[in-house]
């Protein structure tokens, strides 16, 4: 419904949507929905800034709030071989980030699934790797774990211990033949893939983007 409406009233916008649809794999309805949400978040401007996202009340309790918001302003998540962060993102960037969370389709081939999985893994990896150097160091890993567990007050020590244990696990899985004096510097993306090999990313890390118009069911989020 939304898309057809668009095509009549804003032919230009419709064309743009189709372009987005090609790049991100979303359907036109989904894009339309997301655009509505985008406008809502950005106070009807063209771009979203960090403050806009930080003001979402529903997100306030999320322990990973910082990382999630950070991911939106991370150039690495835009499929454009660039590093660094952006100050404000437009709708296209917004969509690009969202596209990491597409569920797998019924008719996807194995290669497509593999690519999708890799994309999702890369997204997670980028969430860890805050300094863009291609490895997750112990410090970075620890920080994430600490934040993950900030909801339950088990203390930083435990979080640290767990992160360290996890790190050792990675080391022992990936580098079984390390020399006695080697030092495991951090998790590279290959190792990251290795440790999550058995995990079904594509069935877990996805959001069901709605096809129908949600404007009637105001969720009370945003403003």
């Amino acid at each position, binding site marked *: 419904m939304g898309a057809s409406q668009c095509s009549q009233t804003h032919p230009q916008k419709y064309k743009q949507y189709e372009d987005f649809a090609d790049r991100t794999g979303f359907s036109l309805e989904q894009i339309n929905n997301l655009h509505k949400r985008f406008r809502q978040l950005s106070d009807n401007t063209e771009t979203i800034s960090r403050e806009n996202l930080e003001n979402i009340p529903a997100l306030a309790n999320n322990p*990973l709030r910082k*990382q999630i918001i950070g991911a939106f302003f991370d150039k690495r998540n835009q499929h454009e071989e660039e590093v660094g962060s952006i100050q404000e993102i437009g709708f296209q960037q917004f969509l690009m980030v969202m596209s990491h969370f597409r569920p797998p389709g019924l008719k996807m081939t194995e290669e497509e699934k593999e690519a999708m999985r890799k994309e999702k893994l890369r997204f997670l990896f980028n969430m860890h790797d805050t300094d863009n150097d291609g490895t997750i160091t112990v410090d970075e890993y620890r920080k994430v774990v600490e934040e993950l567990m900030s909801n339950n007050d088990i203390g930083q020590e435990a979080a640290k211990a767990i992160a360290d244990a996890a790190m050792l696990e990675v080391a*022992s899985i990936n580098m079984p033949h390390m020399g006695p004096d080697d030092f495991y510097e951090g998790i590279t993306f290959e190792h990251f893939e290795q440790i999550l090999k058995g995990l079904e990313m594509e069935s877990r890390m996805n959001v069901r983007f709605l096809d129908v118009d949600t404007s009637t069911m105001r969720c009370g989020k945003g403003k």
Partner: protein
Amino acid sequence: MTSLRGHRLQHTGRGIFSTTMECFTSVKRAAFLLTICTILLCVPHGSNGEIQVIPPTEGGSVTILPPVKPEGPQAFPDAEKANLPVFTMDYNRIQIPFEITLWVLLASFAKIGFHVYHKITVWVPESCLLISIGLIVGAIMHSVHEEPPAVISSNVFFLYMLPPIVLDSGYFMPTRPFFENIGTVMWFAVVGTLWNSIGIGMSLYAICQIEAFGVQDINLQENLLFAAIISAVDPVAVLSVFEDVSVNEQLYIVVFGECLFNDAVTVVLYNMFNFVAEMPVVEPVDVFLGVARFCVVGFGGMGFGILFGFVAAFTTRFTGNVREIEPLFIFMYSYLAYLVAELFGISSIMTIVSCALTMKYYVEENVSQRSCTTIRHVIKMLGSISETLIFFFLGVVTITTEHEWNWGYIMFTLLFAFVWRGLGVLVLTQIINPFRTIPFNMKDQFGLGYGGLRGAISFALVFTLPDNIGRKQLFVTATIVIIIFTVFIQGISIRPLIEFINVRRTNRNLDTINVEIHCRLMDHTVAGIEDLCGQWSHYFWKDKFMRFNDKILRKILIRDSRAESSIVALYKKLELQNAMEILDTVSGDISKAPSIMSLHDDKKSPPKPRKRFLQADLKNMHDILSKNMYKIRQQTAVYTRKHALPNETQSKEILIRRHASIRRSLRSSGPSEGMVPKSQKYFSLPPGQNLDSQFPPKRLSHADDEETMSEMAYPSSRSRFAKPGRSSSRAMMPLRRLDTLTEVPTVAVVDEISRLGGRRGDGASRPNSSSSDSRVPLPRPRLHFQSSADAGNGPSDNVRNGSRDAEEEEEQEPSSSPPPAAWSPESMDPANNSGVGNPLLTRPVWPKWNPKKP
């Protein structure tokens, strides 16, 4: 074979006391007793007091006495009058429980038998085997012209046999996947069952109109009733196949949930149609009333269940001092919930399932580890006994009852059951797929459709049909045919088929911390993204519920209301596991009695060979475990010291304290932070290069030092150690693995990693025996092996080369006792130092001491 034994016993019993009891009545009673048997088995399940009033089973030829205690005072005077018999027998008095016990034993023996030949159960589902045994027993009974025992009455089934089965599957339902797929599960369970019942019922009714079959007297209501009965799927066999081939989680949980909830739906339908079948005329109003009743029954059951679940959880909050009866509460509350639901005529299955689901999470945190094990075992045991008996009995009944065989009706029943199931899955999946994040593909649908075996519930339901249904015989026959057909043909063929079409699989046993962390990470991320999109989906609700749970529910229901993250839980679990492994191996080496029946016994077995361990406090398992972990910790700390920080007792103390603080902060909300010196931060983990570069040289030099020294110290013992090395390295293996988990936060990380990497890989991946061989050529590892052999092998080499070792131990003990005193108070009481843990703890010290000896 086992069945013969049962018979023989009966015969001997009869022969000895030489009553006039006929063969007939004997077996009839035996069958009766089977009934009572189930009652007996359910006793721990139900409340103690009321259960004494056993429902009157029909037949009444035997006065059924509850197995009360013999009235000693009365029996004595009588006996005394007639010349005090030297030998008496009173078979009548014990007959009931006796024969029940025999039946249950028989069924259990059968189960043992199946698992002796492991290959059989892989290819043939257990239910098939049970039915087969039942068939054999039935054949024997038939050959001696026994009458079919009327065992399962409606009351017995619903009040005593059904609850354990349902509680079993409700309690062991995997919670997370279930709630993630709850919509689909309910869709298939409710709508699918309705679809099947109505579809099959209607088509059978159509068949009944054909004169050639001669079944025109079956009316629509009866057809619907029958259809409802046979649409209860019971895929126990399928589930075990699914588990074995680790089929994808979504498919698994839908089959699991479907079987559970469609039992509920079936029973509701059964009761409804049973009622309707007796009504002369059915008016349209009744249909609406039926729908309304359906909802009341379903949701009412759920509400009651949740209520009871919370009450149960709340109760276990206060059972800390009466650990022995903790498990009882669980059974009592579930059974109470079931009975109350029966009382109000709402779905008791629904009630008990939601009760189990609700309380499980909270109860398992409140009760002790041992109670938890008990609960799980008892639930499993009761459930499987109930089911075994039903299947077994099905076999017996198949042979011994009079069947009414009607080719047309039975064949069409089979056909329709198959067709409607297939159609239902196809159509319902098409409808539900757009709402699913991960839609079912054709292969999944095949698994879903083909997994629709019929089982125990169907049989029990049809067997307990009231007698006023004209064609009950036919229904029983048809149901037995359909069960045997599906269980045998589909049950046996599903494994090859699933493997052949290669259904999508999930790796289900991923027990690593990384995976757990990332699951949580993804959950939070996805919830966050959903918030960002402003969409509500189950992650949103999950997030909301978890917050509510942490803030309110846990505070009320759980004694130690500190929210525990799943990561922490897993971390603890892995640590426990490692500690247990070490204990197992060590105890296996020492006592040569590695039978690991229960955790408790296992813990107790090590002390027997060595007296000293008795000093240690064995009161409860938690303490033992934590202590053992402690020893390991200390041991590794000593290792660490040996390699990384030679001759620094201070640093050792810091390390030990640090371990303690971690331990406590994991256990309780760590008040220890203050005690830990600031400097430990420095020691905690040196990711930076400076530390890294600082340690290895020291370590190396020291290690070399020590190696030469120890070589001098044991010129001869090396060779002697090489042989026991295998066993010792086995004992040592888990230690290594533990290192990966526990040792991390210490200075040793760099060290550990390198050690792990260089020598060991991860402990689990190497076979036991290779460790000694692989390390021999390397210069340094030799020392390593040496010391670890000492570490792991303490008690056993104590036995072997006793005198020398004893000497050394004497030398070693006084020298090792000072350090504990110097350590932090929470480290270890010295008494434990000399225990079996000793090898873990003190042995590594003495390579340190020995070099100084010569």
